[in-house]
């Protein structure tokens, strides 16, 4: 049993933290996310060239740093602390995950482009009526000669405005919500028939509605097995959730620290409000939520590589994180009083991100139901 980080992992954390401290303070971020294009390609370039972190979870054969989920966890936690909007999750964790696990013939080249910063991927999985069910797909891909033709509407694709490629999940056979008959495709965003409507999101990210209209792709666009893509999707989404939990830990840490700091300097009735017992207990409960979240995030990121344990571990972590995001986020605002309601203070921006993470890749209810099924079996 060992919860310590290797020297390389500690160095990775320090590198990311020190870059973000210099280039990603709150005011800089706020200025970027409120105007077009909503991100900084030069920061992405620095991630690739100066920091080399876009290769964190890839093997050295592929040009990466030889890490895995723990490296993603470290990067994402630091990103959470700075509310980074550049598309690491969609590109490295999700896009890289699909390529790495699928054994796709072009994976090495495409991953090379990810590590180098040229390929930026966004994950087009959600649909208007699918909620959190990864198999609820109305988007179709029909066989056309050697290739495929895609049609459908993908909802709220985070990072799509910056992307060069989309990972699209589609139904290739079977009925609505069937576990079989699902396939994954890599589609160039510039391909004929792909159109997007881009917009900002409430937490400072960018997203698109993606419309696919008779989009023709070659046989090599298929990622993983035809019709049998769901297990691959579930695996990669679980990795994405484990990474998002790590981001949440960074966000929660800032919410908690910011609240401690504020209540110590804010005076009412002649004393710092941190001296009131009712607020002390609230901050203790926030702290307990944070600690439990860190524990569950470690657990999920350790078990995510074990296919037998993965799903249960990740859903358990996401339940903990979802509850903590609500409790810590809402109380951070409450304890800041009116100041917490202002756009000029960072705390509200962490709260908004925490609120969105609560629902990302499935709400507390969704993951509780999934966990129940895995742990207790289906109810009678």
């Amino acid at each position, binding site marked *: 049993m060992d919860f310590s980080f290797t020297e390389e992992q500690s160095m990775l954390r320090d590198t990311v933290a020190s870059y973000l401290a210099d280039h990603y303070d709150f005011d800089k971020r706020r200025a970027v996310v409120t105007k077009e294009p909503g991100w900084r390609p030069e920061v992405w370039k620095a991630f690739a060239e100066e920091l080399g972190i876009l290769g964190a979870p890839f093997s050295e054969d592929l040009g990466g740093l030889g890490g895995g989920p723990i490296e993603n966890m470290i990067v994402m936690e630091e990103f959470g602390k700075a509310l980074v909007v550049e598309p690491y999750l969609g590109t490295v964790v999700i896009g890289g995950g699909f390529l790495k696990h699928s054994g796709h013939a072009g994976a090495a080249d495409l991953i090379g482009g990810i590590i180098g910063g040229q390929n930026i991927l966004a994950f087009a999985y959600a649909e*208007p009526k699918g909620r959190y069910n990864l198999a*609820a797909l109305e988007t179709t891909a029909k066989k056309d000669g050697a290739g495929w033709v895609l049609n459908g509407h993908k909802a*709220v694709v985070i990072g799509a405005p910056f992307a060069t490629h989309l990972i699209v999940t589609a139904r290739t056979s079977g009925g609505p919500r069937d576990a079989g008959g699902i396939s994954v495709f890599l589609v160039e965003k510039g391909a004929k028939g792909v159109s997007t409507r881009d*917009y900002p999101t409430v937490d400072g990210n960018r997203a698109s509605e993606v419309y696919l209209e008779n989009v023709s792709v070659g046989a090599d666009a298929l990622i993983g097995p035809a019709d049998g893509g769901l297990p691959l999707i579930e695996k990669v989404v679980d990795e994405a959730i484990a990474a998002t939990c790590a981001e949440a830990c960074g966000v929660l840490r800032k919410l908690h620290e910011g609240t401690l700091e504020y209540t110590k300097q804010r005076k009412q009735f002649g004393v710092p*409000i941190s001296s009131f017992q009712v607020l002390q207990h609230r901050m203790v409960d926030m702290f307990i939520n944070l600690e439990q979240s860190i524990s569950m995030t470690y657990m999920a990121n350790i078990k995510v590589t074990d296919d037998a344990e993965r799903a249960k571990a990740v859903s358990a972590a996401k339940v903990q994180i979802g509850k903590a995001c609500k409790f810590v986020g809402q109380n951070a605002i409450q304890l800041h*009083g009116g100041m917490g309601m202002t756009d000029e203070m960072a705390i509200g921006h962490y709260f908004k991100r925490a609120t*969105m993470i609560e*629902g990302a890749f499935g709400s507390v209810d969704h993951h*509780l139901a999934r966990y129940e099924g895995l742990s207790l079996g289906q109810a009678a």
Partner: protein
Amino acid sequence: MNLDFTPEENAFRDEVRTFIKDNYPAELRKAQDEGRALTKEEYLLWHKVLAKKGWVAPSWPKELGGTDWTPTQKYIWSEETARADCLGLMPFGLSMLAPVLYTFGTDEQKKRFLPGIYNGEVWWCQGYSEPGAGSDLASLKTRAERVKGDDGKEYYIVNGQKTWTTLGQHADWGFFLVRTDPDAKPQAGISFLLIDMKTPGITVRPIITLEGGHEVNDVFLDNVKVPVENRIFHENQGWTCAKALLAHERSGIAGVARSKRNLEKVREIAGTERSDTGSALLADAFFRRKVAELEIDLSALEFTELRTLAGESSGKGPGPESSILKIKGTEIQQRLQELALEAVSHYGAPFLRDLRGSNVSVGPDYADGLAGEMFNGRKTSIYGGSNEIQRNIIAKAVLGL
């Protein structure tokens, strides 16, 4: 004890419903449906219709324009206006300042200020909180010094800063708490002043809130000259007025009728949204339980409010128990906002505020703005005396702890 409505009360309900249907301003309805920020004129459209009808200030004394409605009629009124999604009337003049005026003001002050409030000709704002005085309101520092002007009249010269002034950007006049005796105990040296917002030396600066809206403001006062006759009640006894006003602010805050309407909206949304299995979300065991729990909690709040109202009508006045209504009312409002946001899953994320009214459609219409409402709604457990302060009030004034 009974919960039945009399035939007269049912007739009153029909009258109110018909009146709203026939008289609610169409342009206001359109603006509300588009979800954009309202102009000052739009805010006042419904107010003016009601003023003409004589229904704008039900709680005022009859001789000043009140309706003399029974608590049941007021209950029916709030139910029907919420049911029809009528815009809430701006409370600053009607329900915050007016009771102070008719309780503590001179006849001359009542004559001068109440008609403008009633008719919606004068927009009022509140100058209470300061950067250093929130929960501890009595520690306010804005200073008013009494001087004799060149014209031989007496004035207060006011200096300081007020904050969280809701919709102060539209205000013609403001009611302010200022310190007139810096040497007295905090509560003892405060006076209640009415200030014309056009007076030289007043600057109103927007505060943008986390959802991106402009609702609240800082108000800076720099040597603002206020005639002494604009003071309500005695010098240094403004805290008495302030306390009376805060009690009123609390009792209206339960928002039962509005929450009932919002609960209905959540049910409508969840009836349309799909669950993971493809059924209506409202059929999902987890989700429907949360809706049911909220309905029960809302019912508990409603009957607590009705008991409070019945107590008021028998002359007991809104006691410290009204803090229960503030705490539970705001918690329920916030839970409803969270549940609505949860219902729409992915479509809670798009931020389309700047694109409203431009035929942009991303996701279902009902999802638009739900996250912003949820973010903005965090204020309700902070303002009007935070919920922590309300619990202190109950602990001290009700439980005697």
